[in-house]
């Protein structure tokens, strides 16, 4: 799928989606993270919980994405290279659900970086300067979402936040690495005993 196609598709899908209030969205997420901070001691646990939540969101996102694209008459063909997947993710998928698109950088056969300039989740957020919070990945939900949705199309990936605007960098960067291409197979019910 060519780059301009992906971006145009993303834009038109975004137009069709019902919108929610951005402030409500950001504040709800902020409350969620605050609750997690209260429940868990270490920042690793918080990050892990955010990633797990993102995973179950991602699993559902992919069907919605395919269904909406189908309804809009767009053809999303199976990707022939990992770079195509990255483009569709960044330009069409993220655009459709969040209204912001990302850039794909450092593309190789098995990994790429997603650069997100505007993060709708961190709209009013400032992290305290306590060194304890240096490891908190506030928007780790994205990593889970990417992992969940790519798993539904047979790609097992690992996603990590590399740069975070809330921690002082100039851009949000998520590194996505392809671990394994899963094979469509029969599940446990079909295993010979």
């Amino acid at each position, binding site marked *: 799928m060519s780059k301009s196609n992906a971006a145009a598709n993303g834009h038109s899908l975004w137009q069709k989606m019902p919108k929610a209030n951005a402030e409500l969205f950001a504040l709800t997420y902020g409350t969620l993270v605050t609750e997690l901070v209260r429940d868990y001691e270490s920042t690793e646990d918080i990050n892990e919980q955010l990633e797990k939540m993102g995973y179950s969101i991602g699993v559902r996102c992919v*069907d*919605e994405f*395919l*269904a909406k694209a*189908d309804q809009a008459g767009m053809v999303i063909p199976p990707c022939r290279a990992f770079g195509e997947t990255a483009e569709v993710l960044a330009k069409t998928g993220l655009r459709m659900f969040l209204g912001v698109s990302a850039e794909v950088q450092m593309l190789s056969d098995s990994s790429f970086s997603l650069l997100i300039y505007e993060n709708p989740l961190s709209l009013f957020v400032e992290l305290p300067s306590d060194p304890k919070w240096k490891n908190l990945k506030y928007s780790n939900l994205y990593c889970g979402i990417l992992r969940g949705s790519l798993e*539904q199309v047979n790609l097992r990936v690992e996603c990590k936040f590399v740069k975070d605007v809330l921690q002082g960098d100039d851009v949000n960067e998520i590194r996505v690495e392809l671990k394994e291409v899963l094979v*469509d197979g*029969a599940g*446990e*019910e079909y295993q010979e005993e």
Partner: protein
Amino acid sequence: MAVHSLHIFDRKGKTLFTKRYAPGGDNDDKHQLSEQLKLVFGMLFSLRETCTSLAPETEIKDAGLHSVSTGAGTLHNYETLSGLRFALYTTSSSSSSRSGGNNNNNNGKQQGAAIRTSLRFIYTNLWVEYVIRSPIFNNSKTMDVSSTNFEQKLDAYLKSKTWFK
């Protein structure tokens, strides 16, 4: 033409939803039914592998398996990129007559297209809306499709179609 049954499989072959519309047939012996469904899934899976290895490498829209037809009926199949498979088994109402061979063919194609559109509609409007969006659906034993209102919406939709009896 009557709809006999609808089955929905996931990527691993697990049956997510199955409903029988025609009366009679096999008694509801759960074990037998699940064996039958496994065979259906296996057939769809193998046919898809064959199709992808036979098809040329171009971007053809809708390049999956559409339907398998026999004298008794047709199994219509719709697959998504996420591995979800919708299989609808319909039986032909009129007995096959040799003389009306050509006519039957054309009618069959139109009906096939209409059913495929319906399966797409079931996916985009019913499945995504009522199952994926439902917070109680988790694809585990306790929280499966029956905890959503997918079945009622599906029945309501199918009743409104002219080819459903």
